[in-house]
């Protein structure tokens, strides 16, 4: 699996997408949750790649290494970027399955996606609630909030907290067995995004990759 260094719609993507039967666009969790899940998502991406599926794992605006930092980002920036990336990937002529994790599910209703798959979706108000518990008020100001060791645009968090989870038409949702919320499947695993230190769960990565592929088959796109 090779990552290109060029940026597509402001986001990195992979090589060889046109050679694959299906492209999975992975929308990563937000903020620190992405760091804690990164290794498992990378394992999942490799598992998909091994099965002949193209994978794109972008850093969305305000997240990870995206040039637009969290101090400037707005909800519309993420909406615009994710739509642009999905459009660009769809131009390869292959179906796109959007696999979104945690709060990224708020942005996964993309017009050119053929199917959606979610893991542990987190409403915006819950994400912001957890973030605000880490605020250092003396470092915050009128426009920026200092949470979890970084400044984040106050307006962005306000917008995020009001976003409902969208309801795409062909959607499958997985949650942890410890989560009481309804889902298509509950899986036994630890909440990696809440761990004190980043870790990895190879068994979960394999399970998720297989479930994504099965969903693609069910939807008739693989």
């Amino acid at each position: 699996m090779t990552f290109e260094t060029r940026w597509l719609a402001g986001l990195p993507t992979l090589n060889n997408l046109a050679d694959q039967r299906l492209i999975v666009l992975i929308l990563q969790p937000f903020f620190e949750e992405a760091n804690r899940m990164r290794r498992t998502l990378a394992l999942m991406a490799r598992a998909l790649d091994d099965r002949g599926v193209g994978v794109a794992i972008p850093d969305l605006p305000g997240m990870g290494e995206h040039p637009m930092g969290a101090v400037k980002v707005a909800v519309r920036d993420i909406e615009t970027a994710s739509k642009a990336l999905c459009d660009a990937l769809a131009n390869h002529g292959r179906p796109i399955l959007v696999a979104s994790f945690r709060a990224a599910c708020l942005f996964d209703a993309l017009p050119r996606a053929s199917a959606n798959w979610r893991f542990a979706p987190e409403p915006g108000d819950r994400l912001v609630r957890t973030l605000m518990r880490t605020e250092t008020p003396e470092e915050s100001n009128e426009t920026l909030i200092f949470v979890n060791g970084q400044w984040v645009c106050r307006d962005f968090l306000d917008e995020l907290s009001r976003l409902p989870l969208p309801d795409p038409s062909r959607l499958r949702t997985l949650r942890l067995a410890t989560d009481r919320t309804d889902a298509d499947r509950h899986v036994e695993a630890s909440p990696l995004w809440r761990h004190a230190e980043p870790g990895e769960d190879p068994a979960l990565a394999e399970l998720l990759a297989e479930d994504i592929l099965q969903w693609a088959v069910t939807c008739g796109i693989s």
Partner: protein
Amino acid sequence: MPIDRNAISDDIRSLLSDVLGIAEDRAATFTDSTELFGSLPELDSMAVANLLAELEDRLGIIVDADEVDGDMLGTFGGLVDFVSGKLSR
């Protein structure tokens, strides 16, 4: 239905193990007097935020900011009492 304090204790041991990365056999030794916040180096401010979020997810409770204090997080028994109180309402 009466609150099963032992079951809640086990749930919280499992949760501490998951969130803080504490080995299960170590978490199994936690008693009511085991000190948490201020004594467990794993329990920093972000870990507290994640611990509370996971408590809410797993047990279906809401923890308000003004409920988080030394009594609640100071000891394992304090945390079990807090959750038991929430679930009994």
